[in-house]
């Protein structure tokens, strides 16, 4: 259906007589991935309500995995059906775009989600409490850490199986986020995947205080940021008289169909447009963790339960960058000359900032957090290219990066001592001596982060830098390689620590995980190496998925 009729779903219906409300037509097929996931989430809640405790865990895991797998299959089917390329179009009456980037990112998110579920479901790492296998989430999130109620909950073998539906909701939101085709859907999706994440951050089994602190910080700052986003949305709406991407784009280009006097009045007022843009973009930059909106990242990454951190670090970035791309490429291409220089600056400070601050980190999770900031900078370099190459390079980078991240954090969950995960770097000393395999795997991930050739990290970095250079952003590339050099330093530091320094006697032990985590790590390694050695196929995928539907 055409862009002019967009939003009849909500607005024009009001003018019609009461007896014939036009039923909205929804392309269920094209929306199926999202619908499946959301549906599964609801089922998960029902499970929480009705299924006996003993088997909840299994039921939840089963449902989640099946749902995500099905959703992924749906995505693949859509892509195979050409919805990514030739049949790409707007669905749900203009609310959601089903096109290449959307499908690619949804696929990535779903895969990350599956691996996420695996790490969530891991129950072998912590020693069994009272004969009950336990995962990394609190027995009862509501109970105060160390209190009797908690002890009772642990004794009773409770488990916060709600994390699975929460995860599914988050994934659902993330699936919509990069596909959102109007500002309202964008905002809703943002909230839909943010709120569950806030909760997930709070429910760590060990180090609850930090976990809750992380949740509070994430929540308050997140809400703060989304308020900005919303205000930006309001201003953009005020400017264009519509929240539909297509319409706004037309208004920006001045090619809009009919101009009402009011619109004529607001159209003239660029302040609305520019400020609105800036505020919406800021909301997205917050989610991707770009300087100076990055400060939540280290704390939240450190405090949140590591499986959550891994999933969040991977999927949130994918979704948020997807949304950012669509916003900049679909809505604001006409405004390129205004936002490009600003994004240049953001990209540069993000790359350098992340890399430099990471040098002196002493906690592995914080270290990875800062490295993720630096990577956000690299990806931004691709975003700025404003070319199909730029889009596909970013898509590729996101795909590669998310697997490395999940794998890396999964490894972090394995290294434990009495107090749970041993995340302080000093405890990683000599890990290579004690368990060479784990150390080697982690080294692979670190090298991928550092962008050493033959790893996916290098291919991705090359792709974005190439796109940036072709887009005439040579300076960005130079800054990029410099900050990669700086970043290399701290990745190397960890490797040195693991292999070349003598192991501490009271050092941590490496827990032997269940097949679940093994799969997560294994997939991570495989993807890292495959994308490093033979990336062509995936580059093709990303290349075909490189164009947005308008």
């Amino acid at each position, binding site marked *: 259906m055409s862009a002019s009729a967009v939003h009849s779903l909500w607005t024009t219906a009001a003018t019609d007589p009461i007896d014939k409300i036009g039923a909205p037509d929804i392309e269920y097929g094209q929306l199926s991935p999202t619908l499946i996931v959301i549906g599964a989430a609801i089922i998960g809640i029902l499970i929480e309500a009705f299924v006996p405790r003993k088997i909840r865990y299994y039921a939840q895991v089963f449902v989640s995995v099946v749902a995500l797998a099905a959703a992924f299959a749906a995505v693949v089917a859509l892509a195979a059906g050409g919805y990514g390329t030739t049949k790409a179009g707007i669905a749900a009456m203009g609310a959601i775009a089903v096109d290449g980037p959307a499908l690619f990112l949804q696929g990535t998110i779903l895969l990350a989600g599956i691996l996420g579920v695996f790490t969530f479901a891991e129950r072998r790492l912590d020693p069994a409490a009272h004969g009950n296998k336990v995962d990394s989430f609190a027995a009862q999130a509501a109970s105060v850490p160390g209190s009797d109620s908690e002890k009772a909950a642990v004794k009773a073998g409770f488990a916060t199986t709600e994390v699975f539906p929460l995860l599914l909701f988050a994934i659902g939101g993330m699936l919509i986020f990069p596909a959102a085709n109007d500002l309202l859907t964008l905002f809703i999706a943002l909230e839909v995947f943010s709120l569950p994440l806030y909760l997930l951050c709070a429910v760590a089994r060990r180090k609850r205080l930090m976990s809750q602190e992380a949740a509070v910080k994430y929540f308050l700052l997140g809400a703060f940021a989304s308020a900005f986003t919303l205000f930006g949305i309001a201003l953009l709406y005020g400017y264009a008289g519509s929240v539909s991407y297509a319409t706004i784009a037309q208004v920006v280009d001045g090619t809009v169909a009919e101009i009402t006097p009011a619109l004529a009045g607001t159209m003239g007022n660029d302040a609305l447009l520019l400020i609105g843009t800036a505020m919406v973009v800021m909301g997205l930059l917050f989610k991707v963790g770009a300087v100076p909106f990055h400060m939540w990242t280290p704390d939240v990454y450190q405090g949140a339960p590591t499986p959550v951190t891994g999933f969040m670090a991977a999927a949130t970035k994918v979704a948020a960058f997807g949304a950012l791309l669509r916003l900049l490429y679909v809505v604001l291409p006409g405004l390129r000359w205004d936002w490009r220089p600003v994004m240049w600056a953001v990209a540069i400070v993000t790359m350098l900032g992340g890399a430099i601050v990471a040098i002196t980190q002493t906690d592995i999770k914080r270290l990875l957090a800062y490295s993720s900031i630096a990577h956000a900078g690299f990806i931004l370099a691709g975003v700025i290219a404003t070319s199909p190459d730029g889009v596909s390079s970013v898509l590729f980078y996101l795909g590669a990066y998310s697997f490395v991240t999940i794998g890396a954090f999964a490894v972090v969950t394995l290294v434990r001592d009495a107090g749970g995960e041993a995340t302080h770097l000093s405890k990683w000393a000599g890990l290579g001596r004690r368990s060479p395999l784990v150390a080697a795997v982690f080294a692979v991930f670190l090298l991928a982060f550092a962008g050493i050739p033959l790893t996916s990290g290098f291919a991705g970095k*090359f792709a974005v830098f190439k796109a940036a250079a072709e887009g005439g952003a040579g300076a960005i590339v130079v800054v990029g390689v410099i900050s990669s050099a700086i970043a290399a330093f701290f990745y*190397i530091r960890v490797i040195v620590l693991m292999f070349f320094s003598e192991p501490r006697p009271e050092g941590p032990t490496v827990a032997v995980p269940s097949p679940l985590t093994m799969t997560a790590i294994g997939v991570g390694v495989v993807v890292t190496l495959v994308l490093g050695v033979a990336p062509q196929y995936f580059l093709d995928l990303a290349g075909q998925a490189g164009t947005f539907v308008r």
Partner: protein
Amino acid sequence: MSFLLTATAALPALGAIATAAVPAAKRNAAKWLALIVSLATLVLAAIVLVRFDPGGDRYQLTESHAWIKDFGVRYELGVDGIAVALIALTALLIPFIILAGWHDADPLETGNKRWRPTQGFFALILAVEAMVIISFEATDVFLFYIFFEAMLIPMYFLIGGFGDRAHEHGEEAASTQRSYAAVKFLLYNLAGGLIMLAAVIGFYVVAGHFSLQTIAENGVPEMATSTERWLFLGFFFAFAVKAPLWPLHTWLPNAMQESTAPVAVLITAVVDKVGTFAMLRFCLQLFPEASKWATPAILVLALISIIYGALLAVGQRDMKRLVAYASISHFGFIIMGIFAMTSQGQSGATLYMVNHGISTAALMLVAGFLISRRGSRLIADYGGVQKVAPVLAGTFLIGGLATLSLPGLAPFVSEFLVLVGTFARYPVIGIIATLGIVLAALYTLVLYQRTMTGPVKAEVEGMPDLRVRELVVVAPLVVLLIFLGVYPKPVTDIVNPAVKQTLSDVQKQDPKPEVEAAK
């Protein structure tokens, strides 16, 4: 389309994996496996040498497969004379390195079943060999770059993971110094490599492809002078770090000092050659104009390296550091020969890469044997060795004489060619460079005098002479040094056509002799 080149690189790679997989208990099996693989590789390299026709096309035994279309990257292999010579050198040295390092990686405590340093050590050496060989074979800039960079990782573990057993400051200090050296090595080279990455991307943006073979056919892509210069600098920086050229050299002494002698040989005799080789192949071929533009500056730096390296070698107290600085001086010669842009200079430089590899190997490995006996790298801790271990001293002397490029030994030929080649175009620089030969004599003879001659030191008493294994390592090298010194023709014949090509790339003719010019 043959797969010979691929095989030559793949064999050691597979060997590395196999060696790494050997269980902890079967340590010696791993050693033998590594040795056999390296020898097999040597055979393959020999086949390459035989199949290569000096008079034939520029790139021979070529292989070309699509790889990463989006980056314009192809899996393109091909060798010219220069590459063949260096591949042969690499394949030749690795078995000796493995043999020399036979006991360097025996684990101190055998309790830990998971920790398998020996397997790791030999696997890493083979991995390095594979990467070095393929980066010599690559005729695709990107392919070269990938292995040029990836090479750092195994090297890094070799330097940081395995050091001399005995260390004057004890094991704790030793490990910290080792990892310092390793990190320094990695960061220097990584920084260089990343700068180069920017240049590689830039080159792609300009050229749209990475294939040297295409360039050989269609000529260098058009680019603005400033662009060409920037890209050239990007490439050259990386190679200058690797080579290493003053003032980017400081990683080498640390790396060579802290790593075991065989690894030190691996660094300076094999891996660093990739840098100089790349200058010859990539800098000159891709950016001829910029190369000419930068020549004066580079020559001056090379000259500084020669003199500076030699003087510092004189001032060293640690014999490994001494050899390292000597190498820096020699790399100065190589780079000077390359950028002298005369056929004598470049043939000399190529020959120099080979000869320096062999001579350094000889000197450094013998030094390593000496160190393993006394457990100290300090020159002052030795004296009168010649009396107790004459054969060791003799081979050491020969290695030293090769280092000071005594006529009749291989290095002389190359060094003289480089000097003549440079002198022909830049007399002043050539003359100053000849000072290097005096200084070389100084540091070598001082080293020999302090360690080998004079009254026998108490600690040296009863030091065993070279063992059979060690003799097997050194003797062939010595023979080779003499042979190539007396009859270098086989190598020069292979190298000359390639050098001619390179010179035609930069559109340079040799300066005519005055007499002929007059006619």
